[in-house]
């Protein structure tokens, strides 16, 4: 990516204050309300540095959690949680004859995050309206409204949302809502040194991602595919698309991702209808029994 011409307006390394529309310089995207923003996480570029995890924790002032050894390669973060909104997965792969030494070149890393689904199950399941869709088409929890009912937690098909025992409210990635409002690229994407995490308008990102897949296929990496882009795995089971989508090289399960996550809200009506029909049928039986019982 070339240097944005506006960057030349700031020759000094020490800046007097925040640059207006800084995201235009760091990601090539000017942030405007009313458009859809998201992440394209290209796992073939991830080097497992965890700068995204650190940037996220720092910017969002998230408390430390799980300070323990997991035994899972270099991954002691283990999972996304109320206090961890970026999580880098490490999968060490078998030796491959064609490239590099074993367990080095075959190392698969992936920075996982909330997917900001187009029809987000967490938001659809939230009874208080604490979870809402922002003007940037992202999904955010308002902790000043959340009453900690916890129903968004099992609704999420990716196991992302969690309640914090510290305050009894649901927490998850906000796609740096505050930074977007201030014209800044989200913290994780800005800090990513290899541009594995790319921030931008979703349509632009999807287009770019398809080009990247085509390029990788041309170069022989035919494993590469998109997860969460429209009509791709991750977006075929009822979720229209994931605003934070991924380029993967292994099957979704290797990253603990469901191949075809579905939309839980679709199951409300069938369950209610069948149940009410049952109760109505039994009520008829009850009416008949009551009438008969009194007569006998």
């Amino acid at each position, binding site marked *: 990516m070339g240097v944005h011409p506006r960057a030349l307006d700031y020759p000094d390394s020490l800046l007097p204050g925040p640059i207006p529309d800084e995201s235009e310089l760091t990601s090539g995207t000017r942030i405007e309300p009313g458009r859809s923003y998201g992440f394209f996480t290209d796992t073939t570029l991830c080097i497992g540095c965890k700068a995204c995890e650190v940037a996220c924790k720092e910017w969002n002032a998230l408390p430390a959690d799980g300070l323990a050894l997991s035994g899972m390669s270099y991954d002691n973060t283990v999972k996304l949680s109320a206090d961890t909104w970026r999580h880098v997965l490490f999968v060490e792969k078998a030796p491959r004859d064609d490239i590099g030494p074993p367990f080095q070149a075959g190392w698969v890393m992936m920075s996982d995050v909330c997917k900001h689904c187009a029809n987000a199950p967490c938001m659809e*399941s939230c009874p208080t309206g*604490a979870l809402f869709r922002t003007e940037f088409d992202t999904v955010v929890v308002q902790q000043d409204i959340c009453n900690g009912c916890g129903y968004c937690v*099992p609704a999420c098909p990716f196991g992302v949302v969690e309640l914090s025992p510290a305050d009894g409210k649901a927490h998850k990635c906000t796609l740096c809502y505050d930074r977007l409002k201030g014209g800044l690229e989200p913290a994780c994407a800005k800090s990513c040194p290899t541009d594995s995490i790319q921030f931008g308008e979703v349509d632009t990102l999807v287009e770019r991602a398809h080009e990247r897949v085509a390029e990788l296929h041309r170069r022989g990496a035919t*494993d590469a595919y998109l997860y969460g882009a429209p009509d791709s795995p991750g977006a075929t089971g009822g979720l229209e698309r994931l605003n934070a989508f991924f380029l993967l090289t292994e099957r979704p399960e290797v990253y603990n991702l469901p191949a075809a996550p579905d939309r839980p809200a679709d199951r409300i009506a069938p369950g209610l209808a069948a149940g*009410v029909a*049952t*109760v109505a*049928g039994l009520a008829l039986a009850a009416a008949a029994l*009551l009438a008969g019982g009194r007569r006998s």
Partner: protein
Amino acid sequence: MKALTPHHRRSRRDDGHHGDAAAATYYDQPALKPPPYDWRISGYMVLAGIAGSAQIISTLASLSPHPPRRLVRNGRLLGLIGTVLGTPLLIADLKTPSRFYNMLRIARPTSAMSIGSWILSGFGGFSGLVALGQLVAGRIPGLRRLVGLAQVPAAGLGAGMSVYTASLLSATSIPLWSAAPQALGTQFGASSMATAAAALSLAEVAAGRRRTAATLDALTAVSALCELVASMVARRQRAAAGVNGPLEHGRWAISYRAALLLGVVVPVACHGINLLRPPHRRSDQLSAAGSLAALAGGMLLRHTMLRAGMDSTADPRPYLHHSRERR
């Protein structure tokens, strides 16, 4: 700490997305998170079912040619008592209980929790009206008519109370809950009817009104049989999806079998034997045993389904496999 899964022994993805999807996950870490629910939620589910169905039974009884007045009164009171006892359980389970009223901040048809909150509010309101009317109807003449009107929406919402808790479980990503939405709704609805009839029957037996008790016992038995059929359908659908494991092995499997034994087999046996006898030879003890078993079975069913589903999230493989099969 869990042992490493043998990713590296798995064949590369060149096999074109086929093969055993359950083989490799990310270190067998959970792919879903369980909701932070406990006995308070399952307790509420039981109370909601009893209250809702009791309201239906009492409304039907009041509309029958010769209304059994005590049964009508007990059903109306049970409708209110279930709400009064159940609602605090729900609020106490919130992790920020002081904000319980935010449940009525919006109405969201895609949220079973929101639908349930409004059903509970409406049911509670009408049940309160009906119960109040019931208690003072003798003294104020016009009130009897009002109770007669208010009990109809109360009974309608009672049907919602009896079954929405099943949709609450089904409309999640947890496969044990979501694989058989219709069958689970039927199972919970039938169990609600069985437990409400059982609770009302106990009162009738205690008061020596054997004829109405026999009617209610028959309803319990019919509902229990309906629950049995629904549970068999649900089991088949979950097994077909490969997600019935938690109800086949381990502690919740035992608990689930106990729930069916208590909630279905014992009531059907007790009430069946009793009702086949001539009316003057029916046993109060047998009737009470069947009713108590039905109540215990209903409680165990809700608690087992809740906890088995929560615990099932520890293993990512059924969910990830199920998601692949569905694609």
